[in-house]
Each structure stands twice: as structure tokens, then as C-alpha cells.
């Protein structure tokens, strides 16, 4: 048994320590928000955060998580109230939606590091694949959420 902290909760798992975090979350802990897209770190559908940094969880073995704070899409907000979630809904960003959990987790990590990101910042930090081609709206959603966060902070 090993315990990891996910969305602020300590959860126990009997998964083998070599199991990628993605499958620990999905199959052992029942958190299916992070998605399997490629399994080789290419697509970003599995993106979660560990200690605030975006991580492609299909490549991170359970053993590497240690005491790190894991955050998944399920922990982004309790009620869809995160500015990114609101922007995504207002702008109808998702098509099939399968890639969007990863997009959102990458975007949130970006906004924490760069509250006022340029397009180049977004390109660099949100390099996830979306086969439906929602990129235009993902970018717009990030800018909108960033503006709202700055406004509420009264910056």
C-alpha cells in the first residue's frame, strides 16, 4: 500500500509503484477526469499537476509522486467556478471534450506561472493535441480567464 495526496485528500492504493500515475488515478482511485490519449507523453490528455506544475501523468510512475500534491481536473473547483471552467463554458470551447481536462490543467499551471500570458507563452505551455481543432477557442478561453483572475485580484 502506498498513499498519495490527490486534490487535498490522502488516498491509499495497492498499485505497483511502477504504474503510471494516470492509471493509478483512473483505475485504482476512480478519478477518470485525466484521460488516456497516447501513453507516451505526446498529447497531454493525461495532464495533471504535481505541486502546481503540469505533468503528463502517463509518464510519471506512482513511485515518483512521493509527497507531491497531485491536482486533477476533479480538484479544479468544487462547482465549475474556476475562471477557466467558466470561460470554457461561456466560449463553448469543447467539441468532443476528450482533450479538455488536459488543456485545462495545463492552462491553470500556465496562469499560475504567468498571470498575463502572451500567445507565445500559451503556445509554449499548452502544447496539448486537440483532434477536434478547438485551439482557437482554447487560446481565447485562457485569455478570458486570465483577465478575470486579474480583475478579481484587483491588480
Amino acid at each position, binding site marked *: 500500500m502506498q498513499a498519495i495526496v490527490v486534490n487535498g485528500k490522502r488516498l491509499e492504493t495497492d*498499485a*505497483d509503484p511502477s*504504474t*503510471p500515475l494516470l*492509471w493509478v488515478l*483512473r*483505475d*485504482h482511485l*476512480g*478519478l*477518470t*477526469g*485525466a*484521460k*488516456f*490519449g*497516447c*501513453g*507516451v507523453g*505526446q*498529447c497531454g*490528455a493525461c495532464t495533471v499537476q504535481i505541486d502546481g506544475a503540469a505533468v503528463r501523468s502517463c509518464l510519471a510512475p506512482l513511485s515518483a509522486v512521493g509527497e507531491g500534491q497531485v491536482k486533477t*481536473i*476533479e480538484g*479544479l*473547483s468544487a462547482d*465549475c467556478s474556476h475562471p*477557466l*471552467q467558466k470561460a*470554457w*463554458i*461561456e466560449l*463553448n470551447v*469543447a*467539441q*468532443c*471534450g*476528450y*482533450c*479538455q*481536462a488536459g488543456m*485545462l490543467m495545463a492552462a491553470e499551471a500556465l496562469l499560475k506561472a504567468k498571470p498575463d500570458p502572451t500567445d*507565445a507563452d*500559451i*503556445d*509554449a505551455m*499548452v*502544447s*496539448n*493535441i*486537440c*483532434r*477536434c*481543432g*478547438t*485551439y*482557437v*477557442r*482554447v*487560446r481565447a478561453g485562457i485569455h478570458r480567464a486570465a483577465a478575470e483572475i486579474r480583475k478579481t485580484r484587483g491588480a
Partner: protein
Amino acid sequence: MNAISIDRRRFFVSVAAVGGALVVGVQPRNAAAGALASGIAPWLSIASDDTVTVFVATPEIGNGVLTQCAMLVAEELGCAWSHIHAEPATPTFNYLNGELYTKAMGRLGFFAGRSTTPARMTTLLQVGASARERLRAAAAQRWQVPVSEIEARDSLLRHKSSGRTLRYGEVAEQAAKVSMAEEPALKPQSQWSLLGKSRPGKLGAAKVVDGSAVYGMDVRLPGMLYAALRQAPVHGGRLKSYDFEAIRQMPGVHSVVVVDPSEPRTNIKVPAPLPDLTQAASGVAVVAEHYWQARQALDALPVAWEAGPGADWATHEKISAAALAVCEAPAKEVLSKGDALGRLGQAGAKTVSAAYLTPFCDHVTMEPLNGTALVTPERTDLWHPSQNPQQAFAIAVEESGVHPSNVHVHQTLVGGGFGRRVHCDDVRMVVAVARKVPGRPVHVIWSREESMRQGRYRPLVATKMTASLGEDGLPDAFLARYSGVGASTTGLVTCAYANGPIPNFRVEGQTVPAHIRTGPYRGPNYNAHAFMVESFIDECAAAAGADPLDYRLKLLARFDDPAWTKCLKVVAEKSGWGGRLPRGQGRGVAISNWSATAPGQPKEGTTVAAVARVEVSRAGELKVRQIDMAFDCGQVIDRDGVLAQLEGGAVFGLNMSLNEMLTIRDGQVVEGNYNEYPMLRMGDLPDIRIHFDALSGNDRYSEVGEPPVGPIGPAIANAIFAATGKRIRQTPFRLQDLSWA
């Protein structure tokens, strides 16, 4: 507004009270009395708590079909948007109740492709109107006032003079008892307040952004096992041997299951939208407690395969060469108008001739193929991200051998379709594995590599075109010979130039029998032929010394649909067509049309014109800077939804043309993952600008998913020509030599 009027001779509206809810459906008039005793096919229900449920046969694949169906109902029903949600209509119910859904919507009623079939639009508007009138009548009875004094809006019935109100849910049960001599007429379009105006917000959007949306991959059932699947790497090959002992002791391993296509299947047949139910592929699956365990064990499992006849088609070069060779010789006539062969044989006329080639491509849906089934001798349950649940149902029946009344398809959300999940070969494999583990739900997952190497690919297409130009420089005769694997005439026979603009028009074709499996891929064959024809027309323009835009305008003036010209003019103006660009930069234009109902005919389907602006370095590095698109689909119901499909279609067309190609070695698909099959990412995107100014307002609501995929590639290729003088006749462009001096 004749496109939307329910066929009253064939259908009538039926209502029932079910558990306090008003349920509204439509029945065919000719249904035998008593055949409907088991109930009605619900299209809509209004519960006592005001919840409005719209039953939709077509799965949501990201194109917003559920939202659109709800909008149609809400327009007539006048319910509050927050009360409405959509649920899948089930193929089992359809089967058991005289095909009530498919009778109303046609053979492809369950197929997730286009979302605006007139039959479905009509029916949804009608059930919304019929429900509203019954609610009003019930309120009028309750208050003993004339119906005309009652307003229905925002899920409230209001008596205008007294100000009394009732919620829809409060009279739902009573409304089911209202009998009407005649069903209400639909609102005239001029009174629509929702359709064509605004989008109320995509249904299910919150679940996508909070991670609770359930795709096929997210199905979790008590006692569920996972299976990792591998199928014969040479399509059509067979499993020769494997060694279970080598992995038996690995953690979590439950069993190894063999899928053998030659095992007898049942004879139980149910109606299916696509008559070819697909064969099982020869394969082996490792079943384990968790997916990662299954995957590790499968990777460790010693397996040997027999290649079969596919080994003869060892490489894509060989297949391509065979296809191109076919195009050089006369083949079967598919279409002949005028006397193209005679004209082309004439001496003296200026002739243009060129052969084009497009490769196999995979859909790479973001959600890899997967599905979950629980098979017992008495019952089969399938949880699946299908694009075609009725097809899934027919295949699940046949593969499991369970009586259709006990076969249940539970549609999940779908992580992208693009045609890959239409034929349901994935359903076949899921049930084939699960039936060997009876009594336990088995979630079968294709790795990305397995998904990519066991595709039903975009066909490989080769087409040679020859045209002779008349005195005005326009083509007066045109011959196309196409070939390839899975290739068809779509986009050639169905192109507008065949219907007026080019008087002598001939198409011949013959496929190559290579073993690589193909299938529908967003705008099947159109996506290849639009590239070829629109590039070739550009070649004709160059040969005639004409501006490519003017040339098309002249040619399309002979086509009986002014919207084509409008699309070209809008896109030219918005893109700054004709403005000077430095060397190494260029603009290219293309226009094409996709129609599911009357392809190639004027005022049908959706026409899209595109202008691309590109930059090509001397070394041959290509950057697409800007894409402008103008389109005509008649009218739009959901403007933002249409915009999203066009944006996504542009990205799809870009990726297909710039990046995508599968290669074959030893008869097997080489590429397995995104590192070998590159995809556009956010930073690679040009400025994509979609213009609504060319909408004709004609009486149709054509689909917009497939059409934009057509003109992007040729617009880019034509822009490359403008920039470099190099004519590019193959995709993907990333593999072509674009260098110039």
C-alpha cells in the same frame, strides 16, 4: 418554409402519461393497430418537476447534436433552457417497437454524422409544438378560460389577464389526456426566437470541464476486468501461436482470450444501417484486473502471426505505384457527359495533364478505441463510444448470439469520431473478447499504437486528370481516372464542374485490391478529390495565363448556383486577394462542396471557399499564415456551433494536408503514435478567419462538419505554387520538396 413540415400523411403525434410525465412521440400512420400497444417511441417528455428530456438517437461526437436537438424542441415548447437535457434513444427500443425511430428519421437515424437531417428537425419542432399546445389546453381546462388567453414561456403557463401561472410540470399529466383534432402548425421561421439567433450554451459543457463526463474510456462497473488487445499486424493476417505460460504469473493477469474470425457466429440478424457488419480480426487479448497490468502482460506475451495475402502488398510505395499505374490506362466508365474522349483526342487544343496522390491517414480520435461488454448466455450489455449505436446493436447481437430483445447498447460520450466509429468493427472486437469471459464486464482498450495500426483509414487515392482548354482558356473537356485502395468517385462525379461548367466530362476508375483496411474519414474521398480537382483547375488557369480566382469565377458562372461566386468573392475580398506579396509568399484559392443528399447539384449541400496565404523559405520550410473561409450551407440554426465546426474543420484540413501519412513496411502500418504521426498544436496555427457573408439563405440547413475539410489543402498547394512556382501534387506537404531558388 417547406423544408420543415412534418409529413402528416405518414406520421401522427402520440402522447401518453408515464409516471406523471407527459411523453410525446410520433408514430407512422400505417403501423398496425395494436403494434403500438407496448408504448410510444418517446421523443420528448416533461416531468412533474418541469424537467424536459429530449430523446436523441444520434450520439454526441462533439458536433453539438444534442444541444441542437434540444434547441429545436425548446423553440416550440417554450421551456426554460435550464430545464432541458438530452438522453439517448436506444436501438433496442427501436428494434422492439417496429423501428419507430428509424421510420421517422430514415435508415441512418442513429448515425452520428450530420446533425441537421430535415426529418429529425421537423419531428423535434413538431413534438415541441404539440406538447406546448397540450400544456396550454390543460391549463385552460384547469382555469376554465379560453386557450387563446394562455401564454407558454420559460416553462410557465400564464393567464394573461389574471396573471395566474402554472408550471409546465404541474399540468404535464393532465396534458397527456388532452386530445387534439389537429396538431398545431409550426411557428413561421420569422418568429423563431432561439434558432438562428443565439446558442444557449452547449449541453453537458459543465461535465466536460469538471471531469465528470463519461466517455467510453471512463466506464467503471463492479467486477470489471480490463483487456489489452492486439490484432494481426498485417491486416487480414492470423494468429499463429502465443505462449500464455510466459505471462501467467504476472500481476493481475486473469486470462488470455483469442478472437478467431473463423469461429461460427450466430445467424440472428437484425436490421442494420450499414449492411456490411464487418468481420472480426484475428487477435489476442490479455485480460487482467487493471489495464496497466493487462498492457504490461500483453507486451510480454510471445505472439507469432501469419501475414496472409497482405504480405504481397509490402510497402505503400508499391501500393501507390500500382494505383498510379491504373490511372494511366482506360478503366471502367463511371460518368460520361458529352464527348470528353473525342475532344481530348483532337489535335491543336491546349492540353493539361497531371496525376495526384494522397496517402492512407488515420483518424487518430483523441479517445483511443475501446468499449466495455458484459455477456451472459441470456443478456448482452455494451457500453460504447459509438458513432452508430444501431450498427453497434446489430453487431453485438450477432457476435454475442443473444436474442436482440436482451441486447442493450449504452451509448457513452465519444472522444472524437470523424468516421472511425461508424462501422463498429471495434464493437465486434469488444464483444468477441467479452463473450469469452462470460459474466464479467470486460473493458477492452486499444493502445494508441493499436488504434493507429488497426484503423479503417482514409483511402489511398490516385487520380490522373487531363483537360483540353477551349478558346476562352476554360476547360471544355475533362477526363479523370481514379484508383487507389478504398477510393471512390466522391468529389469527382460529384463536383460542380461536372454539372455545367465543363461540358464534356468523363470519369473512369478502378481500385487496387491491397489489404489495408479503409473506411469513412471526414468527408470520405471528397477530402482527396477536392485537393486534386482544385489544384488541377489551378493548373488549367496557369496554362491559360489567367488569375486563379477570375478563372474560377468565369467557370462557375456556368453553374446554376450564384452562392459559389459569392463565396469566392467574399473570401477574395476578406483575404486581400490580388494584393502584392514578396517572393516566397503567395495566396491560393479553392472551392468545393459536400452534400450528403444531392451531391454535385446546385443549391445543395455546403459550399466552402478558402484562400490560404503561405510563406515558403528558400530551403523549403512552409508556414501557413492565414486561412480565410466563406461558406454557404443555406441557413444556420446554431451560429456558434457552425462556427466551431468550420474552425475545427479548417484545423482538420490543415493537419490532413500538411502532416498526415501512414507508411507501410512488410505489409504493416509503421506509425503507431503521435511522435511518428505529427499533429498541429496551438503554436502551429495560422490565423483562421471564417466569414458568414456568403450565406444564401436558401431553404436548407446543410451540414458543416465535412465540407471545410475539402478546400484547405488545395488552397495551400495553390498558394505554394504562387509563392514558389512549384506545383505540389501529393500530400502531406511536410514531406514534399518545396525549396526554390
